[in-house]
């Protein structure tokens, strides 16, 4: 799977339990494209901008040929100037438009941090609610085929830190469409971090427009023994890990956060209350990242429910290496999740044993 090409060859895990023939299965990129197509046709204030949104590959297919349907005024290529163009998108949003600004990779958002962090995220609060910034910024986390240190950064931890930004990380084709439509309809700046590996998937997507509430997660697989919390592509890994673990008789619950800000605390804490054990898994770095934040949340608000330490599965704290042997060592996934769960569930047996002997 060379770098520039990604093919939707896999069926995503059957999260929605849709196996019937009448269910429409489409590739991940098409789900996003359909959301944009519908948003553009339903609201004249929506527009799509970004480097290469009108090029022959159409942003991994997500914006393919939309410029032909809606014209180059509403779907336009931009100069590289990421900070300036983000400010321009912010200004357009202040002026009543609903821009959707596409970037290939989150790494490039680092050039726009001034406008994202100092401006977009502050405007509503800093002016006592007088102005809205309905802006969507989209970027796709890279992975594989030597993407290396500057084309693969999973920067959700950085963006999650900023009050005033909403942070959305879809895991399924269904969500890629529904969350895009919700993000465009939201009156606040929303960052959507996609993951390259999701673009390998096909899945169930209804044709009509629909929205998924921002700030609510979803249980992808109910379970009793342990909670695995993940977002974006890591949900697939977590789900497959849970299936693997069920062979050992371990019944894991899998939470897909869908949005990291606002975070669905209730869903997390309710699940932890039930299971008492947690693995938090993420596609990003460990230190100061989202696994750290969610673990802290559970320690603060759900400590009494915990029957074992929280374990985290994340990338080691180094830049992404290019070489494939190193890359393989860098990324965590199903294997690390299964290992972490097994550690905790052993821990459970010991705890139960102790309880029994105490009786």
């Amino acid at each position, binding site marked *: 799977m060379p770098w520039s090409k990604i093919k939707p060859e896999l069926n995503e895990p059957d999260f929605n339990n849709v196996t019937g023939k009448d269910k429409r299965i489409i590739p991940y990129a098409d789900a996003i494209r359909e959301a944009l197509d519908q948003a553009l046709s339903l609201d004249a*204030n929506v*527009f799509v901008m970004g480097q290469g949104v009108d090029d022959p590959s159409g942003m991994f297919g997500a914006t393919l040929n939309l410029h032909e349907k809606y014209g180059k*005024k*509403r779907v336009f290529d*931009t*100069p590289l*100037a990421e*900070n*300036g*163009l*983000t*400010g*321009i*998108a*912010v*200004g*357009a*949003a*202040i*002026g*009543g*438009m609903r821009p959707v600004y596409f970037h290939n990779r989150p790494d490039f958002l680092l050039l726009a941090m*001034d*406008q994202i962090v*100092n*401006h977009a995220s502050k*405007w*509503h*609060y*800093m*002016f*006592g*609610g*007088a*102005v*809205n910034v309905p802006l969507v910024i989209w970027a796709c986390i890279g992975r594989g085929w030597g993407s290396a240190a500057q084309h693969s950064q999973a920067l959700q931890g950085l963006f999650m830190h900023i*009050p*005033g930004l*909403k942070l959305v990380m879809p895991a399924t084709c269904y969500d890629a469409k529904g969350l895009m439509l919700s993000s465009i309809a939201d*009156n*606040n700046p929303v960052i959507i971090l996609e993951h390259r590996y999701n673009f390998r998937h096909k899945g169930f997507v209804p044709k009509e427009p629909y929205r998924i509430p921002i700030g609510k997660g979803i249980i992808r697989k109910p379970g009793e023994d342990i909670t695995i919390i993940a977002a974006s592509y890591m949900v697939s890994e977590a789900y497959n890990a849970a299936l693997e673990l069920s062979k050992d008789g371990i019944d894991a619950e899998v939470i897909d956060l869908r949005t990291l800000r606002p975070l669905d605390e209730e869903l997390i804490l309710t699940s932890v209350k039930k299971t008492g054990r947690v693995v938090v898994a993420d596609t990003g770095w460990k230190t100061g990242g989202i696994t750290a934040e969610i673990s802290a949340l559970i320690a603060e608000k759900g400590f009494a429910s915990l029957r074992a330490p929280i374990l985290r599965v994340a990338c080691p704290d180094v830049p992404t290496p290019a070489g494939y042997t190193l890359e393989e060592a860098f990324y965590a996934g199903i294997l690390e999740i299964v290992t972490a769960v097994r550690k905790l569930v052993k821990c459970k047996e010991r705890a139960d044993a102790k309880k029994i002997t105490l009786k």
Partner: protein
Amino acid sequence: MKFSQETLLRLYYDMFRIRKTQLRIESLYHLDEMKTPIHLCIGQEAIAVGVCANLNKYDYISSSHRGHGHYLAKGGDLKKLIAELYCRETGCSKGHGGSMHLVDTSIGHMGSSSIVGGGIPTGTGMALAIHMKKQNCVSVVFFGDGAADEGVLYESINFAIIKKLPVIYIYENNQFSVCSRVSARQAGEVVFHAVAPEYMFTKTVDGNTVLEVYEAAREAVLRARNGQGPSFIECKTYRVRGHAGAGSDAKLGYRSAEEIGFWESKCPVTVFCEELLKKGLITQNEIQDMEQDIDLEIDEAFRFAQESPLPKGEHILQYLFSE
């Protein structure tokens, strides 16, 4: 260009009002009741007034940390400005912004940034919104020579030219970024040395002469309204007060008292007043009447601010997100 007496008096009144507001803020600042950093625009009033006199309520402006003049010249509410300096709930930003973050959406002031240069792309983006919505408005971006050092200026102008946006860049060259002279930071004599005039209407004017600013801005605004794209006007001026806070900073020694004195003698408000008097367009009595009106309005604004409630700590989370 011929100006009606009414226009001339209006320009004078607006400058005088901004000046007197600044002087009142300055005179009370030591009491430490306005707990917010202030950046006075004393000596730069002609730019805000000369530009905004060409705008209507629906035109946008983008401003900066030194934004009291822009806000008032565009028609922003004086009471809400002073209340914001007193960090009151009745302030234009409900006490969330302070002196550097003013807003009055009812007159097209959509919020000022204290990140130097931050308002340049956002103001350009507001012009993009105007352009896409096919509105007959313009967007004016006020920024200083420090902001001209920032890359977003190049990025924004380039985009504005490509899209022929109705945006007017008003470069207030007051010659300093804090204590650093523009000549130490800018390669060219004028900042648009990099932008050829065939791509954009450019002009340099004496920023202390309100009629010069007015005329240049008028041309730029007309061009923008006619779909002829962006303009860039450099207004040469000088910051006579210290960078922040009240009073002179002559004692710091980065510039001479003579230099400051020279520019004080070119005061845009006094010099214009003298001209009006000389031409018999205004009388001392009329000036006194104006002053009285302005003083009363300022008294009232300060009273309003001081008597207004402070925001309550328990409401700190309010306004994080819009519904």
